[in-house]
């Protein structure tokens, strides 16, 4: 909630600051337009906004994980670390109430810790010491070293002078002291605003992990093998899907019989999400490469068939007529008119299909795989290795984005006439 509020605040504040600073410097054609609201062509993404947007994400991520990449004064308050103290007041049968101090060493989980040394103190209730990990809580049996234990009616009645009873709790300077229904104390040090690394590790932990996995690998395979396997499946599945789907789409666009025969199949399969096919494909083909490639083939097939079909039906009849009047044969019209005319549609379809395949392969690997990006994050999540999970998600995103960029570049280079007929 507070994170979202900060995010909105940064969004609004940077908008006004940038607007104020940049007002006089920008003078291009668009700035001469008086009507910009509602003119789509006048809306270009503000590069400054994009940069600030990305910086903001890292800033918030760093600030709420106590990252080193964010200066200390910007950190959200961290969890309490160090020695916490509180006193308890105990009563026992036939004894006067007595006070004792509890010292709890709160440590970072994963580091070595020693129980702090303390004086036992005077009175029948003795001072105690214990350790609790940050963001955790721990039971503290303070009665164990006292001269009168539970069999002698040992009972805690107050913490730091404030009365307490089973089921209730007292907030101290260092954290919350609660009492279980049976009367045992439970100390929960202040958590602060930061996220625990097992929920969200700081950015540098993710980067370190990336370096480590890139050099040492994970689960018997290098990082490149994991990513390479996923990519390999996508590329092979997509290529087979395109190799079958495009001719099928052409046939559907050119022949009544093919159109009639395959229309029900294609129209039925198109809305079935490829993810829904995973269980069936696993039953039929197992969890090996064959199953994954069949799945991706099916994911790409319908998209490519529909793209090719609409590419064929989208050809202007006057172009076909012109070609016939210039003496072209059916085959020449196919080769020189229909195919080039359908390429823009096919490229659009290919971009969609690659995106769908990439998503599907990751999902399929989450379900079952021995190698692959999805398998990597799934296994890591079982061991609470959140840094690997986040690293994996970022890499999957980067690769997906990279695929789309490559497809766009290929489209610009190969079908420059797109949208210009």
């Amino acid at each position, binding site marked *: 909630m507070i994170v979202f509020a900060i995010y909105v605040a940064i969004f609004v504040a940077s908008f006004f600051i940038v607007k104020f600073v940049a007002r006089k410097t920008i003078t291009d054609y668009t700035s001469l337009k008086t009507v910009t609201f509602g003119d789509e062509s006048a809306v270009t993404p503000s590069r400054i906004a994009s940069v600030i947007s990305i910086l903001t994400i890292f800033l918030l991520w760093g600030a709420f994980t106590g990252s080193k990449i964010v200066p200390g004064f910007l950190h959200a308050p961290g969890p309490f670390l160090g020695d916490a103290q509180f006193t308890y007041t105990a009563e026992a049968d036939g004894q006067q109430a007595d006070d004792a101090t509890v010292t709890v060493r709160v440590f970072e989980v994963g580091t070595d810790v020693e129980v702090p040394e303390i004086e036992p103190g005077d009175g029948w209730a003795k001072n105690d010491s214990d350790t609790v990990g940050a963001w955790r809580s721990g039971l503290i049996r303070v009665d164990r070293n006292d001269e009168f234990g539970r069999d002698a009616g040992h009972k805690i009645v107050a913490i730091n002078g404030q009365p307490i009873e089973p089921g209730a709790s007292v907030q101290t300077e260092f954290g919350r002291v609660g009492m279980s229904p049976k009367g045992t104390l439970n100390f929960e040090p202040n958590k602060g605003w930061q996220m625990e690394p097992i929920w969200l590790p700081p950015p540098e932990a993710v980067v370190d992990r990336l370096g480590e996995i890139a050099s040492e690998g994970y689960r018997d395979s290098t990082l490149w093998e994991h990513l390479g396997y996923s990519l390999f499946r996508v590329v092979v599945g997509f290529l087979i899907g395109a190799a079958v789907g495009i001719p099928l789409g052409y046939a559907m666009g050119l022949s009544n019989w093919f159109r009639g025969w395959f229309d029900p199949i294609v129209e039925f399969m198109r809305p079935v999400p490829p993810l829904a096919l995973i269980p069936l494909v696993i039953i039929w083909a197992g969890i090996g490469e064959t199953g994954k490639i069949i799945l991706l083939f099916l994911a790409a097939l319908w998209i490519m068939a529909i793209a090719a079909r609409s590419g064929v039906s989208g050809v*202007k009849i*006057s*172009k076909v*007529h*012109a*070609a*016939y*009047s*210039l*003496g*072209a*044969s059916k085959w*020449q019209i196919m080769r*020189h*008119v229909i195919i*080039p*005319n359908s*390429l823009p549609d096919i490229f659009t379809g290919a971009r969609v299909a690659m995106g769908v395949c990439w998503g599907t392969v990751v999902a399929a690997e989450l379900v079952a795989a021995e190698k692959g990006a999805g398998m990597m994050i799934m296994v890591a999540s079982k061991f609470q290795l959140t840094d690997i999970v986040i690293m994996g998600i970022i890499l999957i995103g980067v690769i997906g984005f990279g695929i789309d960029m490559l497809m766009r570049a290929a489209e610009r280079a190969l*079908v*420059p*006439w797109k949208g*210009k*007929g």
Partner: protein
Amino acid sequence: MSGLSINNISMRFDLPNGGSVQALKDVSLDLKEGELMSVLGPSGCGKTTLLNILAGFLAPTEGAIELNGHKVTGPDAERGMVFQQGALFEWMSVRDNVSFGPRMAGKREAEWGSNVDHLLDVVGLQDFKEKAVYELSGGMQQRVALARCLANDPDVILMDEPLGALDALTREKMQGLVLKLWKETGKTIILITHSVEEALLLGERLLVMAPRPGRIHTEYRLPFAEMGVGADLREVKKHPDFNIKREEILGMIWDMEEEIMGRTEAAS
């Protein structure tokens, strides 16, 4: 027998709702080789339908077309088409568009290269021959379409409102170009237009068609095309006969439109 003869063509479209449209009824016409004919008529009178039948894209429900003694049964390189717009292949350069016909006929560049370059010169696009067609203006694109049609050396050229989408100035220049090409190549040309002036300028023969059913209403023989070859078309338009004919034909088409409007109003 050389030339184009249209014998009692009728065309009826059956509509999906069970009705039918009589787009053409008993159209007969003979064109000698090298004649330039323009076709005029209110919207929906069957001009495009007639042209599509001549091109071979549609088979008439009755009647037949003969070109140089043989029956027309389908599209063929002997009958070239120039469309209003958007019939160029935007994935090819200007030169590839123009040389499309000869290339499809399997000819080598040695056979067509000089003719294509000559045509590009004639239509003034020599400097643009390697450009993509979508980089050209509308007028330039229509010049490419003309050159593409001529490069294939058809016997008859069929044009459906070829200049309809151009601005007035470009249009006038293109009209001059059409006349020049007609005279130089001696092709038989049929040109559909919506502009009475254009029909007068670009027709040795001018056919006025009437709608419902589509038929030939009146035919004129005009001297203006001959006068316009190599001359300033604006001078031709100042000719007193030109104005008289223009008014006469405008009135005729106006009456037809009135009649259609009256009939639809009465029907509704």
